[in-house]
């Protein structure tokens, strides 16, 4: 049993393991196929990305040839080609943004010092002093400076309106537009900022006009006079005063470039995307080293995405650009992004993971089904084998029982006879009545022994298919009579009521009379054996439509439906213990079946457990028999057999 279980389990487990392996392999194979297919797409992306950056870098140099640094800065940023740009002069110094303007330390003379001295003591007088200086001004720079200082002093003196009229009037004159202060900064934009601060709350309309002028000036990158640091400062101030005003993307670009320059020197002349000292900011230098474009990671990825054409990729996948250090293993497929993007990777992911699943699942399902089928077949085969083994074991058990039974059945009458004979021989003269009783008992035991031996011999011949029947036409009543004669003596005891019912005009049957009597006696023996203390046994014979019926009815223990199916099998006994009462080896009914089948008849049983059974043999009448007067050797097909043959008895 354990062996059989192992025989099922081991192959099943092995098979499941194999299938598991196969499924994994299949997944890998499908994965590999998809990887191979999409690797080409990724390679195309790579091939397109590489020249995109190379050409982009070369274009920077070309622009540097015909654009001034501020204009180049503005063009790159406005066109969205970079987040900021640092322009270098041929010597490698920063040309934009920066540097700080060179101060112009023009010695203004004593009156200027006096006016500056007054400024903190008496702003009104200082204003007058500056007004005088304006009249004496020898250059636009000095005139503008005097005007700016006068306005500053007027504000301090509380004369806002006068200051505003100065700032928006005389300072807007054409000749003062490029005037600078002592630090080299343009005076006019600073004056405009001051005017904005004064006008912002009192005269919004006037403020708006001034703001537009200032914005125009700040965003005009063709004007070389405005230095980058002042531009950036003014932009921040405007943004502070008017948060709703947008100066992007230029303000952000100026900030980025400035921060980048503060963080450290730029590396020029290396046309590859490199990280800068600022985290999240990348630089791409032009080949000739005139320009360094700055990119923030997010914008950079967006630019790369824009740089590759959409037709390169099938609709069901998407490409991600991974900066160095980003994990790429979770992606379906990845490869280095190219020489222009050192450390970057191109990663491809499936938009719909089910695409991969469904491709793999179809094949896997086939494997699983095959596996299940094989397991099922193994189980079915094992079940069949188990059944066969069980039947074989049951048969072997029955045969072993038979040997024990035969021993018992043969020895019991022998023991009785020996005991009785010994008693008759050895005892003092017995009472004649007792002696007679002993002799009757001996005769009975003798008869029982003969019957047993007859049955064993029949069975033995039956097993070897050697039983030859001598068919003759015999009146049915004769058969019944023969059976009655055989059992009369035994059934004629207290507690046994034996009746016979013979229908009139019974037809003749073509039978082997001895065999048929044996069949009936076996049925009667069974009826006797399996009935209780008060036995009622009826043997009847009737005819219907040319068929003759012999029926044996008893009031015994009856049969369960399960037993009914089995009782005609060899060795089968309903109740092994009960059978001991009357002896027997479980051969009787199989012999009956054999004999009746050989006569082209049938035997059937109707039974209720606890109420009794009726066994009925039906035989075709002499007129209906096809092989009248034939002597016939029984061949294999008549005798139903199962399992192996027991050894001959």
């Amino acid at each position: 049993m354990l062996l059989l279980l192992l025989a099922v389990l081991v192959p099943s487990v092995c098979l499941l393991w194999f299938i598991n392996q196969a499924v994994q392999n299949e997944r890998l194979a499908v994965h590999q196929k998809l990887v191979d297919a999409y690797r080409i797409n990724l390679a195309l992306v790579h091939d397109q990305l590489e020249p995109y950056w190379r050409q982009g870098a070369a274009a920077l140099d070309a622009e540097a040839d015909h654009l001034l640094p501020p204009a180049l800065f503005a063009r790159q940023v406005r066109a969205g080609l970079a987040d900021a740009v640092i322009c270098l002069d041929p010597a490698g110094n920063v040309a934009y943004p920066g540097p700080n303007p060179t101060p112009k330390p023009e010695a203004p003379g004593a009156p200027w010092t006096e006016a500056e001295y007054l400024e903190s003591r008496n702003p009104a007088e200082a204003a007058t002093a500056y007004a005088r200086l304006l009249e004496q001004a020898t250059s636009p720079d000095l005139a503008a400076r005097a005007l700016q200082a006068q306005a500053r002093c007027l504000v301090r003196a509380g004369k806002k309106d006068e200051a505003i009229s100065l700032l928006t009037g005389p300072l807007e004159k054409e000749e003062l537009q490029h005037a600078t202060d002592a630090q080299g900064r343009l005076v006019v934009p600073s004056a405009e900022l001051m005017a904005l601060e004064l006008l912002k709350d009192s005269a919004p309309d006037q403020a708006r006009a001034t703001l537009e002028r200032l914005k125009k000036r700040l965003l005009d990158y063709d004007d070389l006079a405005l230095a980058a640091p002042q531009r950036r400062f003014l932009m921040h101030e405007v943004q502070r005063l008017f948060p709703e005003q947008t100066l992007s993307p230029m303000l952000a670009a100026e900030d980025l470039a400035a921060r980048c320059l503060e963080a450290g020197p730029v590396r020029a002349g290396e046309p590859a995307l490199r990280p800068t000292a600022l985290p999240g900011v990348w630089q791409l230098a032009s080949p000739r080293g005139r320009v360094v474009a700055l990119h923030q990671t997010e914008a950079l990825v967006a630019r790369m995405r824009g740089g590759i054409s959409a037709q390169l990729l099938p609709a069901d996948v998407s490409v991600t650009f991974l900066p160095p250090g980003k994990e790429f293993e979770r992606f379906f497929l990845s490869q280095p992004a190219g020489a222009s993007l050192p450390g970057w990777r191109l990663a491809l992911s499936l938009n719909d993971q089910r695409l991969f699943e469904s491709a793999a699942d179809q094949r896997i399902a086939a494997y699983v089904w095959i596996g299940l089928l094989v397991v099922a077949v193994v189980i079915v085969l094992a079940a069949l084998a188990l059944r066969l083994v069980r039947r074989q074991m049951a048969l072997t058990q029955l045969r072993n029982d038979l040997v024990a039974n035969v021993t018992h059945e043969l020895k019991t009458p022998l023991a009785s006879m020996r005991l009785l004979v010994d008693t008759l021989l050895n005892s003092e003269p017995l009472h004649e009545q007792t002696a007679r009783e002993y002799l009757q008992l001996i005769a009975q035991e003798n008869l029982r022994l003969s019957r047993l031996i007859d049955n064993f011999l029949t069975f033995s011949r039956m097993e070897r298919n050697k039983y030859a029947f001598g068919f003759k036409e015999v009146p049915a009543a004769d058969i019944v009579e023969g059976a009655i004669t055989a059992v009369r003596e035994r059934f004629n005891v207290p507690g046994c009521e034996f009746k016979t019912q013979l229908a009139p005009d019974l037809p003749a049957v073509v039978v082997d009379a001895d065999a048929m009597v044996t069949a009936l006696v076996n049925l009667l023996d069974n009826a006797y054996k399996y009935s209780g203390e008060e036995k009622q046994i009826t043997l009847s014979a009737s005819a219907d439509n040319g068929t003759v019926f012999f029926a044996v009815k008893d009031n015994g223990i009856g049969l369960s439906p399960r037993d009914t199916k089995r009782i005609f099998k060899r060795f089968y006994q309903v109740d092994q213990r009960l059978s001991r009462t009357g002896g027997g080896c479980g051969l009787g009914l199989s012999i009956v079946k054999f004999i009746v089948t050989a006569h082209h008849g049938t035997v059937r049983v109707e039974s209720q457990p606890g109420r009794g059974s009726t066994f009925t043999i039906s035989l075709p009448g002499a007129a209906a028999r096809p092989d009248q007067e034939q002597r016939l050797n029984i061949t294999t097909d008549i005798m139903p057999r199962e399992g192996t043959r027991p050894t001959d008895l």
Partner: protein
Amino acid sequence: MTARKILIVEDDAALLRGLKDNFQAQGYQVRTANDGEKGREAFFRDPPDLVLLDLMLPKVNGYEICRQARSRRLNTPILMLSAKCQEDDVVRGLELGADDYVTKPFGIRELLARAKHLSQPAPRP
């Protein structure tokens, strides 16, 4: 001295009759039972001086009766009577507590002698 009591449990009517007559002739007080259930009942209700026990009995077999008797601490001598003559069968019977084992068919004089030996009270020192 009162007559020795013997219980014969045997399902074969002819054998039972012969045994009963012989033991009665020897002066035993004989009781009989023709199946295991009746035999066990008679045995346990009034233990005799000797039990003659067939093995293959209807309802309850002889081994079972022997086992139950010994587990009830009944020391009555038991003589087993059986057609089973394999060594295993004999050993099994003796191991279950039988005092002797006779296989069928047997000589009546031998059986009577063994029965007499078994039913005699143990000699007092």
